[in-house]
Structures are given as structure tokens and as C-alpha cells.
């Protein structure tokens, strides 16, 4: 009897969770490829790239003010439509990508935001008046809404790093067939 009760209880927990996972697995989403790059000017005669990001040469070749591109992070993830997917870039910046809708057979309307973590307050909070700071504070430093072509890279950049500037090369891809938007 006790085993039966445990089995029923487990089923009550497992079935909804599994159903939720199944729904998420089949929910429309896009695959996201992100290459976060630190762009600096080092005085090279020709632009220098990390070997792992040589593929983005054409994408960033217009940034003539830089001649040195170093990979900060590469992320491949899945972002469901209608939900914001958070990608921490470093200890300062966080990317938030929200695929809003599939606008046509090969275009994806998406919201791209970059948040910057604000420095923690140096003063100790007054225990009686100030609420304890449990979470870091963020400032939205860049927001754009784009109609991105599925599978084609676009870039977002200009944010300052300790050295150089941040360049994000993003590719969103909707692999579903064209007839099921």
C-alpha cells in the first residue's frame, strides 16, 4: 500500500513535468549562434583574429577602427519564441534575446537587449532603513528590434570593455519549413 502511494505521488509530479518539457521541446524556437568579440586597435598592419573566430572576418571587416579581434565567448543555444533568453557575456554585460515572431518564411522579428551590471554600492546599507541588496542592479545600455534573416549574421557593438569594445555577432535561425510559420 505504501509503495502504491509513493508511485501515485511520483506520477503526479513526473507527468506534468514531462508534459511541460515535451511542450517546450516542440514549442517554436530559433537556434542562436553568438560570438562575442573584444575589438581593439593594436597597430597591426592587417586585422588579426583568433583562429576560432576567423569565420567572422567578413562580418567585422568594416570596423576599420579596430585591427585585433579576440574571442570573448561563443554560445550556441535555443531561444523559444515569445520568451527572453538570457546569455551572460562577461561579468559586466548580459545579452537578452527575445525572438518575437516569425515574420515571413525567412525573417525573424527579434528584440535584442544588452544590459550592463552597475557597480555595487560601496556604502554599507543602513540595516534599519535600506533593504538588503540581494540582486545586482542592471542598466539597459542597448536595445534594438530587428527583422533578421534566418541564418545570416548581424552584429551589435560599440559597448566599452576594460580594453577595447564589445562586438556581438549574432545568427538566429528558424529551421522549420516555410509552410508552418
Amino acid at each position, binding site marked *: 500500500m505504501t509503495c502504491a502511494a509513493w508511485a501515485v505521488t511520483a506520477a503526479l509530479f513526473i507527468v506534468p513535468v514531462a508534459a511541460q518539457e515535451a511542450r517546450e521541446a516542440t514549442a517554436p524556437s530559433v537556434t542562436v549562434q553568438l560570438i562575442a568579440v573584444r575589438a581593439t586597435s593594436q597597430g597591426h598592419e592587417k586585422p588579426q583574429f583568433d583562429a576560432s573566430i576567423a569565420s567572422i572576418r*567578413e562580418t567585422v571587416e568594416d570596423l576599420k577602427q579596430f585591427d585585433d579581434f579576440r574571442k570573448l565567448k561563443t554560445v550556441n543555444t535555443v531561444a523559444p519564441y515569445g520568451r527572453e533568453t538570457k546569455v551572460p557575456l562577461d561579468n559586466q554585460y548580459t545579452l537578452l534575446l527575445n525572438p518575437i515572431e516569425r515574420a515571413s518564411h525567412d525573417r525573424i522579428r527579434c528584440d535584442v537587449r544588452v544590459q550592463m551590471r552597475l557597480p555595487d554600492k560601496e556604502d554599507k546599507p543602513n540595516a534599519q532603513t535600506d533593504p538588503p541588496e540581494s540582486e545586482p542592479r542592471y542598466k539597459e545600455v542597448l536595445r534594438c528590434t530587428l527583422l533578421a534573416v534566418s541564418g545570416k549574421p*548581424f552584429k551589435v557593438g560599440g559597448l566599452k570593455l576594460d580594453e577595447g569594445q564589445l562586438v556581438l555577432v549574432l545568427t538566429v535561425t528558424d529551421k522549420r519549413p516555410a509552410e508552418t510559420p
Partner: protein
Amino acid sequence: MNRKLYTIERWFDGDTASEAEAKALIAGESACAAHVETLKLLRTGARELARRESIEPAQFPAFMAGIRERLEPAPRHYRGVLAIASAVAASLIAAIAIFVMASPAPENISAEVEQVGTTIEGAEVGYYNTDNGTMTVWVDVPEGDLP
């Protein structure tokens, strides 16, 4: 001679006592006859000056049209040009709008930007397509403006 002319002038002005003498002088001397003609001409001119001009009701529209013509020459001249220019501008705007709406999105670009923004004070966000069609969104942050 002056006395003769004076006699003629007195007769011309209505002095009947001088009439016989004046007529004899006019008939006898060419200078006196010429003086009478001069006096007649002067009298005619004086009458013309004294006559007051008046506008008949039938002439009034033409009179006002003449005044308007002098007062408003520029608007009459440019009205047609401005109307044509307005029509051409409206046609151009409509044509450009139709072209933009009807044109398909460029095939080689990687994205179209619909909206950009930043909360960094003094920063500007712009976007452009590179030659190979890569959409680039770039935030230009002034030195020292990050918190």
C-alpha cells in the same frame, strides 16, 4: 506795344469799352492777333484743369481691377507656379511612398532594423549595412559616460 496787348487782354477778359480798339488792333497787327490766339489757348487749358474727373458706375469694376493689378502683382504672378510646385511635390512624395512600400526588402542584407535605443546619457545608436549586407547596430558612447 505793351499798351496794345493790355487793351486786347482787357477786352478778352470782358471789358466791352475796349472792344472797338481791340478788334482794330487784332485786325491790323499780326502780333496782336497772335496774342489773342495765345489767350484763347490759355483759357482752354485752364478750363481743362478746373474740370473734375468722375468715375461712372459702369467704369467702376475696371477702375478697381486696375488698382488690384497694381497692388497685387506678385501673388498673381506666382500663384500658378506655387500650385504646380505643390502638385509636383505631392506626386513625388506619393511615388516615393509607393516605391518604398511596394519594393521587396533587399535580398542580400542580414537584417532590417525597426527600432534602436539606449539609456546611456549622451550616447547615440546608429545602424548601417556593410557592403556584404551585414546589418550593424552600433552604440557610440562618449568617453566617461558609463556609470
